[in-house]
Protein backbone atom coordinates (compact mmCIF):
# COMPACT_ATOMS: atom_id res chain seq x y z
CA UNK A 1 0.00 0.00 0.00
CA UNK A 2 1.40 3.37 -0.83
CA UNK A 3 -0.96 6.08 0.30
CA UNK A 4 0.34 9.62 0.06
CA UNK A 5 -0.80 11.69 2.95
CA UNK A 6 0.22 15.11 4.13
CA UNK A 7 -0.59 16.70 7.45
CA UNK A 8 -2.35 20.00 6.88
CA UNK A 9 0.00 22.83 7.75
CA UNK A 10 -1.60 25.51 9.85
CA UNK A 11 -1.34 29.26 10.25
CA UNK A 12 0.10 31.95 8.03
CA UNK A 13 3.44 31.44 6.32
CA UNK A 14 4.87 34.57 7.89
CA UNK A 15 4.46 36.25 11.26
CA UNK A 16 5.79 39.24 13.09
CA UNK A 17 8.73 38.09 15.14
CA UNK A 18 8.92 39.11 18.80
CA UNK A 19 12.61 39.62 17.96
CA UNK A 20 11.82 42.31 15.35
CA UNK A 21 12.78 45.85 16.41
CA UNK A 22 11.03 49.08 15.45
CA UNK A 23 13.17 51.62 13.66
CA UNK A 24 14.15 54.77 15.52
CA UNK A 25 16.22 57.78 14.49
CA UNK A 26 18.87 59.43 16.62
CA UNK A 27 17.91 63.11 16.92
CA UNK A 28 20.49 64.28 19.48
CA UNK A 29 23.58 62.95 21.21
CA UNK A 30 26.06 64.09 23.81
CA UNK A 31 29.30 62.46 24.80
CA UNK A 32 29.04 62.69 28.60
CA UNK A 33 32.37 61.00 29.35
CA UNK A 34 34.82 59.00 27.23
CA UNK A 35 32.80 55.90 28.20
CA UNK A 36 29.25 57.24 28.39
CA UNK A 37 27.18 58.74 25.62
CA UNK A 38 23.63 60.04 25.65
CA UNK A 39 21.14 59.57 22.80
CA UNK A 40 17.72 61.03 22.11
CA UNK A 41 15.60 58.95 19.76
CA UNK A 42 12.27 59.14 17.98
CA UNK A 43 10.54 56.30 16.22
CA UNK A 44 10.41 56.64 12.44
CA UNK A 45 6.64 56.16 12.61
CA UNK A 46 6.32 58.97 15.17
CA UNK A 47 4.75 56.69 17.78
CA UNK A 48 5.79 57.09 21.43
CA UNK A 49 7.69 54.34 23.24
CA UNK A 50 4.86 54.07 25.76
CA UNK A 51 7.06 53.12 28.70
CA UNK A 52 6.66 53.54 32.45
CA UNK A 53 9.57 55.14 34.35
CA UNK A 54 12.48 52.72 34.91
CA UNK A 55 11.69 50.42 31.99
CA UNK A 56 14.29 49.14 29.55
CA UNK A 57 14.52 48.52 25.83
CA UNK A 58 16.53 46.15 23.66
CA UNK A 59 18.65 48.28 21.33
CA UNK A 60 19.79 46.91 17.99
CA UNK A 61 22.83 48.32 16.28
CA UNK A 62 22.11 46.92 12.85
CA UNK A 63 24.76 44.51 11.71
CA UNK A 64 26.18 44.13 15.21
CA UNK A 65 23.49 42.91 17.61
CA UNK A 66 21.30 43.77 20.53
CA UNK A 67 21.78 44.90 24.14
CA UNK A 68 19.39 45.80 26.98
CA UNK A 69 19.52 49.51 27.94
CA UNK A 70 17.57 51.45 30.57
CA UNK A 71 15.40 54.28 29.31
CA UNK A 72 16.70 57.42 31.04
CA UNK A 73 13.85 59.76 30.10
CA UNK A 74 10.34 60.04 31.47
CA UNK A 75 7.20 59.13 29.52
CA UNK A 76 6.11 62.72 30.23
CA UNK A 77 8.75 63.79 27.65
CA UNK A 78 7.39 61.67 24.80
CA UNK A 79 7.38 61.13 21.88
CA UNK A 80 11.20 61.25 22.14
CA UNK A 81 12.99 58.93 24.53
CA UNK A 82 16.56 58.86 25.75
CA UNK A 83 19.29 56.35 26.50
CA UNK A 84 22.61 56.77 28.27
CA UNK A 85 25.00 54.07 27.17
CA UNK A 86 28.34 52.98 28.56
CA UNK A 87 30.64 51.48 25.94
CA UNK A 88 31.49 48.04 27.29
CA UNK A 89 30.61 45.45 24.65
CA UNK A 90 30.34 45.11 20.88
CA UNK A 91 26.85 46.64 20.66
CA UNK A 92 27.47 49.58 22.98
CA UNK A 93 30.85 50.36 21.45
CA UNK A 94 29.27 50.35 18.00
CA UNK A 95 26.49 52.58 19.32
CA UNK A 96 29.05 55.15 20.47
CA UNK A 97 30.13 55.56 16.86
CA UNK A 98 26.62 56.55 15.77
CA UNK A 99 25.41 60.11 15.49
CA UNK A 100 22.39 62.25 14.67
CA UNK A 101 20.32 60.97 11.76
CA UNK A 102 21.41 57.36 12.11
CA UNK A 103 19.02 54.50 12.75
CA UNK A 104 18.77 52.10 15.66
CA UNK A 105 16.35 49.25 16.27
CA UNK A 106 14.28 49.25 19.43
CA UNK A 107 12.29 46.43 21.01
CA UNK A 108 10.22 47.10 24.06
CA UNK A 109 9.54 48.73 26.42
CA UNK A 110 10.24 45.78 28.69
CA UNK A 111 10.03 45.29 32.41
CA UNK A 112 7.61 46.24 35.14
CA UNK A 113 8.90 49.82 35.50
CA UNK A 114 7.80 51.88 38.46
CA UNK A 115 4.13 52.67 38.88
CA UNK A 116 4.66 56.21 40.12
CA UNK A 117 1.01 57.19 40.11
CA UNK A 118 0.35 54.62 42.83
CA UNK A 119 2.65 56.70 45.06
CA UNK A 120 1.16 60.17 44.64
CA UNK A 121 1.76 62.41 47.60
CA UNK A 122 4.92 60.62 48.70
CA UNK A 123 8.33 62.15 49.25
CA UNK A 124 11.00 60.76 46.95
CA UNK A 125 14.62 60.16 47.91
CA UNK A 126 16.78 59.27 44.92
CA UNK A 127 20.17 57.71 45.58
CA UNK A 128 21.97 57.24 42.27
CA UNK A 129 25.53 56.07 41.84
CA UNK A 130 27.39 56.12 38.53
CA UNK A 131 25.33 54.90 35.60
CA UNK A 132 22.47 54.21 38.05
CA UNK A 133 21.47 57.81 37.46
CA UNK A 134 20.23 56.81 33.99
CA UNK A 135 17.25 54.66 35.09
CA UNK A 136 16.71 56.90 38.14
CA UNK A 137 16.46 59.94 35.88
CA UNK A 138 13.40 58.56 34.10
CA UNK A 139 11.56 58.68 37.42
CA UNK A 140 13.16 61.93 38.60
CA UNK A 141 11.87 63.62 35.44
CA UNK A 142 8.45 62.05 35.95
CA UNK A 143 8.22 63.30 39.53
CA UNK A 144 9.44 66.78 38.57
CA UNK A 145 7.11 66.99 35.56
CA UNK A 146 4.18 66.21 37.86
CA UNK A 147 5.60 68.17 40.72
CA UNK A 148 2.29 68.82 42.47
CA UNK A 149 1.47 65.08 42.58
CA UNK A 150 4.47 64.30 44.76
CA UNK A 151 5.98 65.52 48.02
CA UNK A 152 9.49 66.55 48.94
CA UNK A 153 12.07 65.40 46.40
CA UNK A 154 15.68 64.76 47.36
CA UNK A 155 18.33 63.68 44.87
CA UNK A 156 21.69 62.25 45.95
CA UNK A 157 24.16 61.61 43.17
CA UNK A 158 27.58 60.00 43.41
CA UNK A 159 30.37 59.41 40.93
CA UNK A 160 33.99 58.32 41.16
CA UNK A 161 35.43 61.64 39.94
CA UNK A 162 33.93 64.96 38.77
CA UNK A 163 34.69 63.89 35.19
CA UNK A 164 32.51 60.81 35.64
CA UNK A 165 29.38 62.80 36.52
CA UNK A 166 26.60 62.14 34.04
CA UNK A 167 23.70 64.41 33.08
CA UNK A 168 25.55 67.51 34.29
CA UNK A 169 22.98 69.88 32.78
CA UNK A 170 20.24 68.08 34.67
CA UNK A 171 22.30 68.23 37.88
CA UNK A 172 22.67 71.99 37.47
CA UNK A 173 18.96 72.39 36.81
CA UNK A 174 17.97 70.26 39.80
CA UNK A 175 20.44 72.10 42.05
CA UNK A 176 18.99 75.44 40.98
CA UNK A 177 15.39 74.43 41.68
CA UNK A 178 14.03 75.50 45.06
CA UNK A 179 11.60 72.58 45.12
CA UNK A 180 14.32 69.91 44.87
CA UNK A 181 17.10 69.17 47.33
CA UNK A 182 20.05 67.93 45.26
CA UNK A 183 23.45 66.85 46.56
CA UNK A 184 26.34 65.60 44.49
CA UNK A 185 29.48 63.88 45.71
CA UNK A 186 32.58 62.32 44.19
CA UNK A 187 34.84 59.64 45.61
CA UNK A 188 37.97 61.38 44.38
CA UNK A 189 38.03 65.15 43.68
CA UNK A 190 39.80 66.80 40.79
CA UNK A 191 41.29 70.25 40.51
CA UNK A 192 38.59 72.91 40.69
CA UNK A 193 36.07 70.64 42.42
CA UNK A 194 34.46 72.53 45.30
CA UNK A 195 31.65 70.07 46.03
CA UNK A 196 31.32 67.11 48.37
CA UNK A 197 33.94 64.41 48.55
CA UNK A 198 33.15 60.95 49.85
CA UNK A 199 30.97 57.95 49.10
CA UNK A 200 27.30 58.58 48.41
CA UNK A 201 26.17 57.45 51.86
CA UNK A 202 27.95 60.47 53.38
CA UNK A 203 25.22 62.63 51.80
CA UNK A 204 22.49 61.11 53.96
CA UNK A 205 23.46 63.33 56.92
CA UNK A 206 22.91 66.43 54.77
CA UNK A 207 19.26 65.73 54.08
CA UNK A 208 16.03 65.57 56.06
CA UNK A 209 14.01 62.41 55.58
CA UNK A 210 10.46 61.83 56.74
CA UNK A 211 10.57 58.02 56.83
CA UNK A 212 6.82 57.52 57.02
CA UNK A 213 6.29 59.37 53.73
CA UNK A 214 9.42 58.56 51.77
CA UNK A 215 10.04 56.26 48.84
CA UNK A 216 13.78 55.63 48.48
CA UNK A 217 14.90 54.88 44.93
CA UNK A 218 18.40 53.41 45.17
CA UNK A 219 20.20 52.58 41.96
CA UNK A 220 23.89 51.96 41.53
CA UNK A 221 26.54 49.29 41.65
CA UNK A 222 25.70 46.35 43.97
CA UNK A 223 28.15 47.50 46.64
CA UNK A 224 26.59 50.97 46.74
CA UNK A 225 23.13 49.47 46.93
CA UNK A 226 23.98 47.55 50.09
CA UNK A 227 25.36 50.56 51.94
CA UNK A 228 22.65 52.94 50.71
CA UNK A 229 19.86 50.54 51.73
CA UNK A 230 21.48 50.34 55.15
CA UNK A 231 21.32 54.15 55.43
CA UNK A 232 17.71 54.24 54.22
CA UNK A 233 16.69 51.57 56.73
CA UNK A 234 18.63 53.41 59.45
CA UNK A 235 16.63 56.51 58.58
CA UNK A 236 13.48 54.50 59.27
CA UNK A 237 12.29 53.87 55.71
CA UNK A 238 10.66 50.42 55.49
CA UNK A 239 12.08 47.69 53.23
CA UNK A 240 8.97 47.83 51.05
CA UNK A 241 9.74 51.47 50.19
CA UNK A 242 13.38 50.96 49.23
CA UNK A 243 13.28 50.51 45.46
CA UNK A 244 16.09 49.38 43.22
CA UNK A 245 16.56 48.49 39.57
CA UNK A 246 18.62 45.39 38.85
CA UNK A 247 21.05 45.07 35.98
CA UNK A 248 20.96 41.83 34.03
CA UNK A 249 22.05 40.82 30.54
CA UNK A 250 18.69 40.03 28.96
CA UNK A 251 18.99 38.37 25.57
CA UNK A 252 15.28 38.35 24.74
CA UNK A 253 13.20 40.43 27.17
CA UNK A 254 10.43 37.88 26.73
CA UNK A 255 10.87 35.61 29.74
CA UNK A 256 12.63 32.83 27.82
CA UNK A 257 16.40 33.14 27.39
CA UNK A 258 17.19 32.66 31.09
CA UNK A 259 20.11 35.08 31.32
CA UNK A 260 18.30 37.54 33.58
CA UNK A 261 17.00 34.89 36.00
CA UNK A 262 17.45 35.43 39.70
CA UNK A 263 16.42 32.12 41.20
CA UNK A 264 12.91 31.63 39.75
CA UNK A 265 12.40 35.27 38.80
CA UNK A 266 12.83 36.61 35.28
CA UNK A 267 14.06 40.19 35.78
CA UNK A 268 12.87 41.13 32.27
CA UNK A 269 9.27 40.36 33.22
CA UNK A 270 8.98 40.78 36.99
CA UNK A 271 11.72 43.43 37.23
CA UNK A 272 13.95 45.28 36.81
CA UNK A 273 12.31 47.29 39.62
CA UNK A 274 12.16 45.49 42.96
CA UNK A 275 11.73 46.53 46.56
CA UNK A 276 14.48 45.70 49.02
CA UNK A 277 11.95 43.43 50.72
CA UNK A 278 11.84 41.38 47.48
CA UNK A 279 15.56 41.60 46.74
CA UNK A 280 16.36 40.41 50.24
CA UNK A 281 14.37 37.22 49.66
CA UNK A 282 15.76 36.69 46.17
CA UNK A 283 19.23 36.35 47.72
CA UNK A 284 21.08 36.23 44.39
CA UNK A 285 19.76 39.64 43.38
CA UNK A 286 22.51 42.01 44.41
Amino acid at each position, binding site marked *: MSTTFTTQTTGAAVAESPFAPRLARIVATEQFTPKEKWFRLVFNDGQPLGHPPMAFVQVTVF*GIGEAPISVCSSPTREPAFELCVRAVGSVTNAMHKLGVGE*TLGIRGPFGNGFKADAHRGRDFLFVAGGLGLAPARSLIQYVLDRRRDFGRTTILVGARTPGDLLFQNDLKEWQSRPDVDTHVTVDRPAEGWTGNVGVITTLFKKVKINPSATMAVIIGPPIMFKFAVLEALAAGIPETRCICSLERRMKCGLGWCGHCQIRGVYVCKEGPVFTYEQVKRLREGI
Partner: protein
Amino acid sequence: MLPRVLDKRSFRSCVQALLAGHSVVGPMAKGDKFVFDEIASPDELRMDYPISLLGPRKYFFPQSEAVLRYKMGDGIAIEPTALPTQPRVVLGVHPCDMAAVYLLDAVFAKDQVDPVYKARRANAVAVGLDCKKPCDDYQFCLDMGSLSRREGYDLFLTDLGDRYFVEIVTERGKALLDGATRDARPAASDDFAARQEIEEQKARNFRHKLPFDVKYLPEILDESYDSLIWEAIARRCFACGSCNITCPTCYCFDVQDEIALDLKTVTRTRRWDSCQLHEFAKVATGENFRERRSDRLRHRMFRKGKYILEDYGRMGCVGCGRCDRVCVAKISGVETYNQIAGNR
Protein backbone atom coordinates in the same frame (compact mmCIF):
# COMPACT_ATOMS: atom_id res chain seq x y z
CA MET B 1 -11.25 7.77 20.91
CA LEU B 2 -11.13 4.02 20.89
CA PRO B 3 -7.69 2.48 20.47
CA ARG B 4 -6.63 0.58 17.39
CA VAL B 5 -4.15 -2.16 16.68
CA LEU B 6 -1.61 -2.16 13.88
CA ASP B 7 0.49 -5.22 13.11
CA LYS B 8 4.17 -4.51 12.60
CA ARG B 9 4.18 -5.17 8.89
CA SER B 10 1.34 -2.65 8.47
CA PHE B 11 3.21 -0.22 10.72
CA ARG B 12 6.13 -0.45 8.30
CA SER B 13 3.95 0.38 5.29
CA CYS B 14 2.23 3.08 7.33
CA VAL B 15 5.61 4.76 7.94
CA GLN B 16 6.42 4.30 4.25
CA ALA B 17 3.20 6.13 3.38
CA LEU B 18 3.99 8.94 5.81
CA LEU B 19 7.40 9.42 4.18
CA ALA B 20 5.71 10.52 0.97
CA GLY B 21 4.28 13.68 2.52
CA HIS B 22 6.22 14.29 5.72
CA SER B 23 9.63 14.63 7.18
CA VAL B 24 9.62 11.55 9.39
CA VAL B 25 11.85 11.68 12.42
CA GLY B 26 12.50 8.75 14.69
CA PRO B 27 15.02 6.80 16.71
CA MET B 28 17.98 5.46 14.71
CA ALA B 29 21.17 3.66 15.67
CA LYS B 30 24.39 5.65 15.74
CA GLY B 31 27.32 3.44 16.70
CA ASP B 32 26.21 1.67 19.85
CA LYS B 33 23.97 4.61 20.81
CA PHE B 34 20.73 6.01 19.42
CA VAL B 35 19.73 9.38 18.03
CA PHE B 36 16.61 11.05 16.69
CA ASP B 37 17.09 11.76 13.02
CA GLU B 38 15.16 12.02 9.80
CA ILE B 39 14.59 8.60 8.31
CA ALA B 40 14.63 7.75 4.62
CA SER B 41 13.17 4.28 5.06
CA PRO B 42 11.12 2.53 7.76
CA ASP B 43 13.99 0.03 8.04
CA GLU B 44 16.15 2.70 9.66
CA LEU B 45 13.76 3.04 12.57
CA ARG B 46 14.85 1.43 15.83
CA MET B 47 11.65 1.35 17.81
CA ASP B 48 13.44 -0.92 20.32
CA TYR B 49 15.84 1.87 21.34
CA PRO B 50 16.38 2.32 25.07
CA ILE B 51 17.12 6.08 25.07
CA SER B 52 18.55 8.55 22.56
CA LEU B 53 21.61 10.74 23.13
CA LEU B 54 19.52 13.88 22.60
CA GLY B 55 15.77 13.83 22.86
CA PRO B 56 13.59 14.96 19.95
CA ARG B 57 13.65 18.49 21.46
CA LYS B 58 15.75 19.66 18.49
CA TYR B 59 12.79 19.07 16.15
CA PHE B 60 10.62 21.42 18.19
CA PHE B 61 13.22 23.88 19.45
CA PRO B 62 16.30 23.56 17.21
CA GLN B 63 19.81 23.99 18.56
CA SER B 64 20.14 27.02 16.31
CA GLU B 65 17.47 28.91 14.42
CA ALA B 66 16.87 32.23 12.74
CA VAL B 67 14.42 34.40 14.66
CA LEU B 68 14.76 37.44 12.41
CA ARG B 69 16.28 38.52 9.13
CA TYR B 70 17.02 42.04 7.99
CA LYS B 71 18.87 43.78 5.20
CA MET B 72 21.02 46.85 5.52
CA GLY B 73 21.33 49.13 2.52
CA ASP B 74 20.00 52.63 2.00
CA GLY B 75 17.63 51.86 4.82
CA ILE B 76 16.93 48.93 7.08
CA ALA B 77 14.50 46.36 5.72
CA ILE B 78 13.19 43.98 8.35
CA GLU B 79 11.80 40.87 6.75
CA PRO B 80 8.67 39.17 8.00
CA THR B 81 9.61 35.94 9.73
CA ALA B 82 9.02 32.92 7.54
CA LEU B 83 7.30 30.21 9.52
CA PRO B 84 8.28 26.57 9.21
CA THR B 85 5.80 24.76 6.96
CA GLN B 86 7.36 21.30 6.72
CA PRO B 87 4.83 18.70 7.90
CA ARG B 88 6.62 16.35 10.23
CA VAL B 89 5.94 13.17 12.12
CA VAL B 90 8.07 12.56 15.19
CA LEU B 91 7.91 8.84 15.82
CA GLY B 92 8.75 6.78 18.84
CA VAL B 93 8.88 9.52 21.46
CA HIS B 94 9.30 8.05 24.93
CA PRO B 95 7.20 9.43 27.82
CA CYS B 96 10.07 11.42 29.39
CA ASP B 97 10.79 13.22 26.12
CA MET B 98 7.14 13.92 25.44
CA ALA B 99 6.73 15.37 28.94
CA ALA B 100 9.64 17.65 28.07
CA VAL B 101 8.07 18.83 24.82
CA TYR B 102 4.81 19.38 26.68
CA LEU B 103 6.70 21.73 29.02
CA LEU B 104 8.26 23.59 26.07
CA ASP B 105 4.74 24.03 24.64
CA ALA B 106 3.81 25.92 27.81
CA VAL B 107 7.05 27.94 27.91
CA PHE B 108 6.79 29.29 24.38
CA ALA B 109 3.16 30.30 24.85
CA LYS B 110 3.28 31.78 28.34
CA ASP B 111 3.00 35.58 28.14
CA GLN B 112 4.21 35.86 24.60
CA VAL B 113 3.64 33.30 21.88
CA ASP B 114 6.72 32.36 19.88
CA PRO B 115 5.32 32.17 16.35
CA VAL B 116 8.16 30.00 15.03
CA TYR B 117 7.88 27.45 17.83
CA LYS B 118 4.11 27.45 17.50
CA ALA B 119 4.19 26.86 13.75
CA ARG B 120 6.78 24.11 13.99
CA ARG B 121 4.81 22.44 16.76
CA ALA B 122 1.57 22.76 14.84
CA ASN B 123 3.16 21.00 11.89
CA ALA B 124 4.64 18.16 13.93
CA VAL B 125 2.54 15.14 14.82
CA ALA B 126 3.97 13.38 17.86
CA VAL B 127 3.74 9.60 18.03
CA GLY B 128 4.66 8.30 21.46
CA LEU B 129 6.09 4.92 22.36
CA ASP B 130 5.74 3.38 25.78
CA CYS B 131 8.71 2.12 27.81
CA LYS B 132 8.21 -1.40 29.12
CA LYS B 133 11.33 -1.35 31.24
CA PRO B 134 13.90 1.22 32.39
CA CYS B 135 16.31 2.25 29.64
CA ASP B 136 19.27 1.89 32.03
CA ASP B 137 20.27 2.69 35.62
CA TYR B 138 20.20 6.47 35.17
CA GLN B 139 16.51 7.11 34.58
CA PHE B 140 14.12 8.18 37.33
CA CYS B 141 11.08 9.00 35.20
CA LEU B 142 8.75 7.15 37.59
CA ASP B 143 9.72 9.54 40.39
CA MET B 144 9.33 12.59 38.20
CA GLY B 145 5.87 11.50 37.11
CA SER B 146 6.69 11.54 33.41
CA LEU B 147 6.43 7.78 32.83
CA SER B 148 2.65 7.72 32.86
CA ARG B 149 1.86 11.15 31.37
CA ARG B 150 -0.18 11.25 28.17
CA GLU B 151 -0.13 14.97 27.25
CA GLY B 152 1.37 16.33 24.07
CA TYR B 153 1.04 13.18 21.98
CA ASP B 154 -1.19 12.73 18.99
CA LEU B 155 -0.81 8.96 18.94
CA PHE B 156 0.70 6.67 21.53
CA LEU B 157 2.07 3.21 20.72
CA THR B 158 2.64 0.24 22.95
CA ASP B 159 4.66 -2.62 21.53
CA LEU B 160 2.68 -5.83 21.95
CA GLY B 161 5.32 -8.03 20.26
CA ASP B 162 3.91 -8.63 16.79
CA ARG B 163 1.71 -5.52 16.78
CA TYR B 164 1.30 -2.01 18.19
CA PHE B 165 -1.52 -0.95 20.45
CA VAL B 166 -2.36 2.52 19.14
CA GLU B 167 -3.97 5.03 21.50
CA ILE B 168 -5.49 7.92 19.58
CA VAL B 169 -5.00 11.06 21.63
CA THR B 170 -5.98 13.81 19.18
CA GLU B 171 -8.12 14.25 16.08
CA ARG B 172 -4.96 15.14 14.25
CA GLY B 173 -3.44 11.82 15.28
CA LYS B 174 -6.52 10.02 14.04
CA ALA B 175 -6.36 11.83 10.70
CA LEU B 176 -2.69 10.92 10.34
CA LEU B 177 -3.38 7.26 11.05
CA ASP B 178 -6.43 7.09 8.80
CA GLY B 179 -4.55 8.82 6.00
CA ALA B 180 -1.54 6.53 6.16
CA THR B 181 -3.09 3.10 6.64
CA ARG B 182 -6.35 1.20 6.34
CA ASP B 183 -5.02 -1.67 8.36
CA ALA B 184 -5.45 -0.25 11.85
CA ARG B 185 -8.25 -2.42 13.26
CA PRO B 186 -10.19 -1.66 16.44
CA ALA B 187 -8.53 -3.07 19.54
CA ALA B 188 -10.14 -6.32 20.68
CA SER B 189 -10.30 -7.75 24.16
CA ASP B 190 -7.05 -9.72 23.86
CA ASP B 191 -5.29 -6.51 22.73
CA PHE B 192 -6.58 -4.68 25.79
CA ALA B 193 -5.48 -7.61 27.93
CA ALA B 194 -1.98 -7.57 26.40
CA ARG B 195 -1.79 -3.81 26.98
CA GLN B 196 -2.87 -4.36 30.57
CA GLU B 197 -0.19 -7.01 31.02
CA ILE B 198 2.44 -4.47 29.87
CA GLU B 199 1.19 -1.99 32.46
CA GLU B 200 1.61 -4.62 35.15
CA GLN B 201 5.10 -5.49 33.89
CA LYS B 202 5.98 -1.81 34.00
CA ALA B 203 4.84 -1.56 37.59
CA ARG B 204 7.24 -4.42 38.42
CA ASN B 205 10.13 -3.15 36.26
CA PHE B 206 10.28 0.47 37.39
CA ARG B 207 11.48 1.26 40.88
CA HIS B 208 11.47 4.58 42.69
CA LYS B 209 14.89 6.24 42.96
CA LEU B 210 13.90 9.04 45.30
CA PRO B 211 13.06 8.33 48.93
CA PHE B 212 10.30 10.95 48.86
CA ASP B 213 7.32 11.97 46.75
CA VAL B 214 8.44 14.48 44.12
CA LYS B 215 5.87 16.98 45.37
CA TYR B 216 8.20 17.58 48.33
CA LEU B 217 11.21 18.29 46.09
CA PRO B 218 10.74 22.09 45.97
CA GLU B 219 10.69 22.26 49.77
CA ILE B 220 13.62 19.90 50.15
CA LEU B 221 15.59 22.05 47.71
CA ASP B 222 14.63 25.20 49.61
CA GLU B 223 16.00 23.80 52.82
CA SER B 224 19.27 22.94 51.09
CA TYR B 225 19.78 26.42 49.65
CA ASP B 226 22.44 27.52 52.13
CA SER B 227 24.09 24.13 52.47
CA LEU B 228 27.73 23.57 51.61
CA ILE B 229 26.46 20.57 49.63
CA TRP B 230 26.44 22.66 46.45
CA GLU B 231 30.06 23.60 46.90
CA ALA B 232 30.91 20.01 47.71
CA ILE B 233 29.31 18.66 44.53
CA ALA B 234 30.50 21.55 42.37
CA ARG B 235 34.13 20.76 43.21
CA ARG B 236 33.86 18.07 40.57
CA CYS B 237 31.96 20.21 38.04
CA PHE B 238 33.88 21.36 34.96
CA ALA B 239 31.10 23.81 34.03
CA CYS B 240 31.07 22.30 30.55
CA GLY B 241 27.30 22.53 30.02
CA SER B 242 26.83 18.96 28.72
CA CYS B 243 23.97 18.56 31.19
CA ASN B 244 22.13 21.49 29.58
CA ILE B 245 22.79 20.40 26.01
CA THR B 246 21.37 16.92 26.59
CA CYS B 247 18.51 18.03 28.86
CA PRO B 248 15.19 17.72 27.01
CA THR B 249 13.62 20.60 28.98
CA CYS B 250 16.42 23.19 28.78
CA TYR B 251 15.23 26.16 26.78
CA CYS B 252 17.64 28.98 27.67
CA PHE B 253 19.27 30.56 24.66
CA ASP B 254 21.69 33.15 23.40
CA VAL B 255 20.85 35.60 20.61
CA GLN B 256 23.42 36.84 18.09
CA ASP B 257 23.21 38.87 14.89
CA GLU B 258 25.24 37.25 12.13
CA ILE B 259 26.14 39.22 9.05
CA ALA B 260 26.62 37.56 5.67
CA LEU B 261 29.64 38.10 3.44
CA ASP B 262 27.72 40.75 1.48
CA LEU B 263 27.86 42.82 4.71
CA LYS B 264 24.17 43.59 4.24
CA THR B 265 22.13 40.52 5.05
CA VAL B 266 21.83 39.81 8.75
CA THR B 267 20.34 36.79 10.49
CA ARG B 268 19.39 37.08 14.13
CA THR B 269 19.98 33.60 15.47
CA ARG B 270 19.09 32.04 18.76
CA ARG B 271 21.11 29.11 20.02
CA TRP B 272 20.83 26.79 22.97
CA ASP B 273 22.81 28.20 25.85
CA SER B 274 23.98 26.78 29.16
CA CYS B 275 23.45 28.26 32.62
CA GLN B 276 26.53 26.32 33.71
CA LEU B 277 28.89 28.42 31.61
CA HIS B 278 30.83 31.10 33.47
CA GLU B 279 29.56 34.03 31.38
CA PHE B 280 25.88 33.16 31.56
CA ALA B 281 24.84 35.63 34.29
CA LYS B 282 27.58 38.19 33.71
CA VAL B 283 26.51 41.79 33.03
CA ALA B 284 28.09 44.74 31.27
CA THR B 285 29.47 46.41 34.37
CA GLY B 286 31.48 43.27 35.12
CA GLU B 287 29.37 41.76 37.89
CA ASN B 288 28.77 38.05 37.54
CA PHE B 289 25.70 37.06 39.51
CA ARG B 290 26.50 33.35 39.46
CA GLU B 291 30.25 33.58 39.54
CA ARG B 292 30.94 30.28 41.28
CA ARG B 293 30.33 26.85 39.78
CA SER B 294 28.41 25.95 42.93
CA ASP B 295 26.04 28.90 42.33
CA ARG B 296 25.42 27.70 38.80
CA LEU B 297 25.03 24.04 39.75
CA ARG B 298 22.55 24.96 42.45
CA HIS B 299 20.69 27.17 40.00
CA ARG B 300 20.32 24.28 37.54
CA MET B 301 19.10 21.85 40.19
CA PHE B 302 16.63 24.42 41.50
CA ARG B 303 15.39 25.16 37.98
CA LYS B 304 14.75 21.50 37.33
CA GLY B 305 13.24 20.70 40.71
CA LYS B 306 11.48 23.89 41.76
CA TYR B 307 11.42 27.09 39.69
CA ILE B 308 9.97 25.63 36.49
CA LEU B 309 7.38 23.69 38.45
CA GLU B 310 6.33 26.88 40.21
CA ASP B 311 6.13 28.78 36.91
CA TYR B 312 4.36 26.21 34.76
CA GLY B 313 2.92 23.54 37.05
CA ARG B 314 5.02 21.04 35.10
CA MET B 315 8.23 19.43 36.28
CA GLY B 316 11.43 20.94 34.93
CA CYS B 317 13.07 17.53 35.23
CA VAL B 318 11.48 14.54 33.51
CA GLY B 319 13.88 11.99 34.99
CA CYS B 320 15.44 10.87 31.70
CA GLY B 321 18.88 10.80 33.34
CA ARG B 322 20.69 12.27 30.33
CA CYS B 323 22.54 14.90 32.41
CA ASP B 324 23.90 12.15 34.65
CA ARG B 325 24.81 9.91 31.72
CA VAL B 326 26.91 12.56 29.96
CA CYS B 327 28.51 14.18 33.00
CA VAL B 328 32.26 13.61 32.83
CA ALA B 329 32.48 14.48 36.53
CA LYS B 330 29.79 11.93 37.38
CA ILE B 331 27.53 14.51 38.98
CA SER B 332 24.07 13.04 39.27
CA GLY B 333 20.77 14.85 39.62
CA VAL B 334 19.00 11.95 41.24
CA GLU B 335 21.90 11.35 43.66
CA THR B 336 21.97 15.04 44.51
CA TYR B 337 18.25 15.03 45.28
CA ASN B 338 18.77 11.94 47.44
CA GLN B 339 21.70 13.49 49.23
CA ILE B 340 19.96 16.76 50.08
CA ALA B 341 16.95 14.81 51.34
CA GLY B 342 19.29 12.78 53.56
CA ASN B 343 20.95 15.90 54.90
CA ARG B 344 17.77 17.20 56.43
